[in-house]
């Protein structure tokens, strides 16, 4: 019981730290990350689609759901993903692993803090 409690505590701390690292994202820094990594293909303006769909309101949105964007791959449309912060984090870390067959020509962002920042920025777009 004591051992179980210890592992539970480690698990809880790990999850908490993980969530904190996501939550610690800085939207101001995230705006810069967005400009560097995403802005050529995506806009943060509502209804403004480029090669990729607008990312305004992306957090919490269903994948492939921007109504007037017709460039989605079948893989993306069929993915049944809802873009939670965690899912976005996984996706922008390894796009082709999360959506095999997707169109996005992006190798991924390794920097955990930068991902948290850009997710914080996307979350702030309301």
């Amino acid at each position, binding site marked *: 019981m004591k051992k179980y409690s210890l592992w539970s505590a480690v698990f809880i701390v790990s999850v908490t730290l993980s969530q904190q690292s996501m939550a610690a994202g800085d939207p101001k820094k995230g705006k810069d990350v967005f400009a560097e990594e995403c802005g050529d293909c995506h806009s943060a*303006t509502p209804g403004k*689609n480029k090669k990729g769909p607008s990312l305004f309101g992306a957090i919490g949105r269903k994948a492939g759901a921007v109504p007037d964007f017709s460039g989605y791959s079948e893989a993306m449309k069929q993915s049944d993903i809802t873009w939670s912060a965690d899912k976005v984090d996984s996706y922008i870390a390894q796009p082709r692993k999360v959506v095999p067959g997707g169109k996005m020509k992006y190798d991924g962002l390794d920097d955990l803090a930068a991902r948290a920042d850009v997710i914080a920025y996307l979350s702030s777009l309301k």
Partner: protein
Amino acid sequence: MRASSAKWPGIAGGLGLRIVGKILCVTALLGLSASVANAVPSYARQTGSDCVSCHVGGYGPQLTPYGMNFKLGGYTDTDGKDMKIPLSAMLVANWTRTSKDVAEADKLEYFGTNNNAAVQEVSLFLAGRMTDNIGTFIQSTYSGVEKKWALDQVDMRFARSLKLGDKDATLGLSLNNNPTLTDPFNTLAQWRFPYVSSDFNAGFGPTPLMENLGGSVAGANAYMLFDKNFYAELGLYDTLSTTGLNMINAGDAGKFKGVGTYWRLAYVKDMKRDNFNIGLVGFNAKVQPDRSDLGTANDYRDLGIDAAYQFLGNREHIFTVNASYMKEWQTLNYTYSNLAEADNLKNSLNQFRLAGSYHYNQTWGATAGIFDTRGSTDSLLYGSSLNGRPNTSGYILQGDWTPWGKEDSWGAPFANVRLGVQYTGYNRFMGGSSYIDGDGNERRATDNNTVMLFLWTSI
């Protein structure tokens, strides 16, 4: 845009047009160089992207990695919406003041010896996606200086992306009319700084053959970008017939004996925040300058190395550096042996270019560049030179303002304009600090120093 189409005062007058026509039409007269092609708003409308996505400073032609990939992808990327019309238009107007009035024999027809204002160029573009894999960049230009129309730039591409092993690759084919037009980087003749210059400028001295064929040749180039990092291109060119040249109002570079061969290798690395590329380029051709006297050809071999770096960051502060060095080996079989209009059978030409730029907020830009061309001593070939050398060097400074071209800009993506001032200063011109102008008088290199105010707009 006939950015480098200024004539050479000394050459035109010193040895006379006969030599110019026989020899320098191939290697030196910059007037043959087709125009600089630039920002094309129809691409922005097609992709939904802003000018700043593809171009440093919000106006062409200096490409970002996104712009390079758009070009290599055959101009076919889209925002998925149909009914995009692949048409654009461009206008360049300028006012040019030279330090000292040019010689009467050297002034451009229809204009004065100094303080000239001109609508230098009006262009129409057929530029955009034709099918999923085919796109075009075709520019037709009316020169308000030469008072004539010409088919200016042609680049029709087929491209497709595929996997080679587990690596991404883009394969493409280009049909074009200018050896460096196809290049995706910002260092070779067609795409390097200065991106606009005055037709009333004295020019930058002799340039390698590769840079002087625009419009007068037709080429087929195959290219590949492998694993996003390795770029290779091979092109074969032939000169157009006289009838073909007349149809499109292109200059005559003579007739190739065999085909001209263009090749390009480069390594490019895009780290998003910044990027760099380094490469090699070459062009070989045998040219028969006089179409009525075929058989013996001048032989030109060009070899160059180039490198570039861009810091893009969050696009608020952008820095770029572009550099190139090119050497040309000339074997003037026709000019030396048949015409006796060169001192040497073999000559060489060395050209160095360097430019650095800073842009603030994709709106305010400052660019400084240097040019330095050196070559063999040949008094017959370079008749306007006092020491027989073609050496020409100096610097270019430019400041510009590009108010639009951003996502939230007024009139986007239709309204685009750049206003600027450019100063060209000469240390040497045709050999040294002085040369012989078209009237036969000695003229200082610094007399050619030029200020240009320009307005450059496109829709």
